[in-house]
């Protein structure tokens, strides 16, 4: 059986440097305004009386039951055996129903091509035996990529659950 792949980002260790965003831009070349991974922050917050600054790199989580796939009226969204959720740009009609359906707001509209796109874990790299473009350039080394099983072992079940609300 094909192993499920996953990417987990340890938010606490993210420095907010945006390198992952540029690594993705270089690899996947989305047009201006489209960010398949984006480092978001609420800025400095007071949490339990203490100042905190948390960066949150948001991107497609490759949900196990993807609401975007269910919402697509033309069946352009497919899930591979390894869990990667792919949008077929030939089939996509640009209706944005998937963008509405995604609870995480990570689907990006490519206005040049008139289609919806999103992070696909650089499946073309994975298929060549490489890792997603953002992983190894990260200064905080907070992007973990591997099989779900590996990552569960590596990070611990609890931590994984906390980072993956869809599970």
């Amino acid at each position, binding site marked *: 059986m094909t192993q499920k792949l996953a990417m987990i980002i340890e938010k606490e260790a993210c420095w907010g*440097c*945006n*390198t992952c965003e*540029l690594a993705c831009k270089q690899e996947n070349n989305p047009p*201006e305004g489209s960010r398949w991974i984006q480092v978001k922050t609420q*800025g400095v917050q007071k949490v339990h009386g203490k100042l905190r*600054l948390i960066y949150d790199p948001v991107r497609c989580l490759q949900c196990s039951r993807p609401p975007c796939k269910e919402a697509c009226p033309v069946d352009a969204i497919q899930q591979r055996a390894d869990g990667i959720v792919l949008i077929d740009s030939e089939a996509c009609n640009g209706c944005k129903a998937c963008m509405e359906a995604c609870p995480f707001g990570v689907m990006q509209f490519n206005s040049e091509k008139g289609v919806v796109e999103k992070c696909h874990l650089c499946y073309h790299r994975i298929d060549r*035996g490489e890792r997603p473009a953002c992983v190894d*350039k990260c*200064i905080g080394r907070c992007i973990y990529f591997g099989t779900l099983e590996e990552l569960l072992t590596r990070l611990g079940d609890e931590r994984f659950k906390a980072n993956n609300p869809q599970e």
Partner: protein
Amino acid sequence: MKTLKDSNNLLRSPTESVVRSHCRICHGGCGVLVHVKEGKVVRIEGDPESPISRGTLCPKGIASIQLVYHPDRLLHPLKRKGARGKGKWERVSWEEAYQMLAAKMNGYKKQYGAESIVLGYGTGRDNESFIYRFANLLGTPNVLTAGHMCYGPRVATSIITCGNLPVCDYERNPQCIMVWGNNAILSNPDEYKGVYLSDALAKGAKLIVVDPRFTKLADRSNLWLQLRPGTDVALALGMIHVILEEKLYDKEFVQHWVHGWREFVERVEQYPPKRVAQITWVPEEKIREAARLFAATKPACIQWGVAIEQSINCVDNNRTLIALAAITGNLDVPGGMVFYVPPPTMSASQFGAHRLLPPEQRRKRLGGDVFRLADAFAILNPKFVWDAILHEKPYPVKMIFLISSNPVITRANASMVHEALEKVDFLAVSDFFLTPTAELADLVLPAATWLEMDYVAEFWKRHGYVLARKKVIQVGECKSDHEMLNELGRRMEQKDHWWPTVHEALNAILQPSRLTFEEFAEKGFLRGEMEYRKYLKKGFSTPTGKVELYSTRMKDLGYDPLPQFREPPESPVSRPDLLKDYPYILITGMRPTAFFHSEHRQIPWLRELLPEPYVEIHPETAEKEGIEEGDWVILESPRGRCFQRARLTLGIDPRVIGAQHAWWFPERESPEHGWREANINLLTDNDPATCDPAMGATNLRALLCRISPREGEKP
């Protein structure tokens, strides 16, 4: 070192090749694998074998692709057509450009003396030693740099205090790191890069952060000391006071290796934590806690940055931090602050040919009699250059040749800078784009980026490495500044001191290693063999052979041999008369991740990260001033004003405003490119009386300002 064949698994197609090189989009040094296909750079990956960056990169490094192929890049030399600054240009050949430069320089030298010609760079594109060589051989002592307020002071102060620049020894696992005035992850620390700090913290090192702003480093810290801007030296002296009081210092080291201990202790006694708390706003208990944590955790190091240098306390900030490292026994020990051993190459100062500048010319360095420590290190304060142009005092400056510099945006008192550059007889600029500075030039040269040159990179740095930078592509007629100066030098009186080709110059730099550039490039880098506690054998390289907490060199130069706190020249304490109109303390120069100083605003991927400048303001202050998140605001100082957008944050004191520097808008109409809109240097001061008395460092980090909403639409 692996050969390039081992990287083949990263290749896309049989026609793609990989060149191992070192980035220089900022102050540089990260190892990169540049993927090339059909003569074009197609991808930049981090080099996992790099001892500097360990495979990581930053947004700017990756975006180098968009820099090299940018449609606005200068591709051939341009000569001004019509009046200055009207944006009309005529293409000329390199030969014509060289002849013009040589004729101008020979003419001014003959009529006004070589000192009437100023060469300049900004923060330097690894071209510094070539520029100094050219200037020294020309006979001018005037090289306009950022060295008076950036890195130069750390080097100069370290050399007079302990013989060399001490650098955090991340490889040997410091257990406590004190980051002082440096956002070392997002900005560019010289020597090692952010990943070393990040890795050290991941391994569990304790972290103390001294910063008026709550950065991500502050978030990760064990202790964050939010000090009043400009009071760093008082805070450091207060910490030393605690260390002395609680006898937490290394008694043996102090006994054998410190010069002037008694005098130093007497001086420190003037800074008890109670007084220091009043000066710095840092609570007494936190000062004590930080002092104890730093002194008790071994080994420990201080990751310092440029912020402490852009102050009237520049030199004393630096030497007090050296004192902190020294008395806690952390100098030149594994995991402490160490003196790296350079690999066998010619030194940058040898290549710079400083000895060939005649003494009578050296004595003419502008402002050399005022800022005497800077003068001893061939550094000058820019204000003296602008004065020499505008008022011809003490003598006229007729020509400026700026090589990688945009002072209209990056130097204090931008109005004065602009006026001087408009007036100077002849201005030549070598750069990538027509910047607001280059727009004022008579001659513009197209500079090569790091992807378009061979170089023995960073042989001036003090991390013990030289790195191979390799030419991957040729863009237009662009030339590296090294090649340009070598070719120009060969057309002038100084011709015997240059080489037939720039490659032979690189071989000369490498000569002590007995490697040719090709052999060196094959290796990728050279590292000096590290040895710790070198002082046990040969002492410290200072006049007394010890760490001079009482500085004999400063005394000889006519300065206070001991560190002291000077109240910033424009602060609520020193200028209460200004408070009614300018009630807030202004910090300038907050570093974003997207840009390096005034560069990169034209690069789409980077501009998307930060489309507009912002100013940090506490929500309470914003409410008081009627400012909401995202509003365009007017920032004003007694000298001028500019516009940025408000970003409300709890991470700054309500009495302090933090502004970004170096903004211009390449997309806006030539020749101004909106340089007056968001340029914080319209507010900064360059009066020598406000600068560090020894180094001439400009005070950019503690001014007074007011802030108000800018009504109406965005500018």
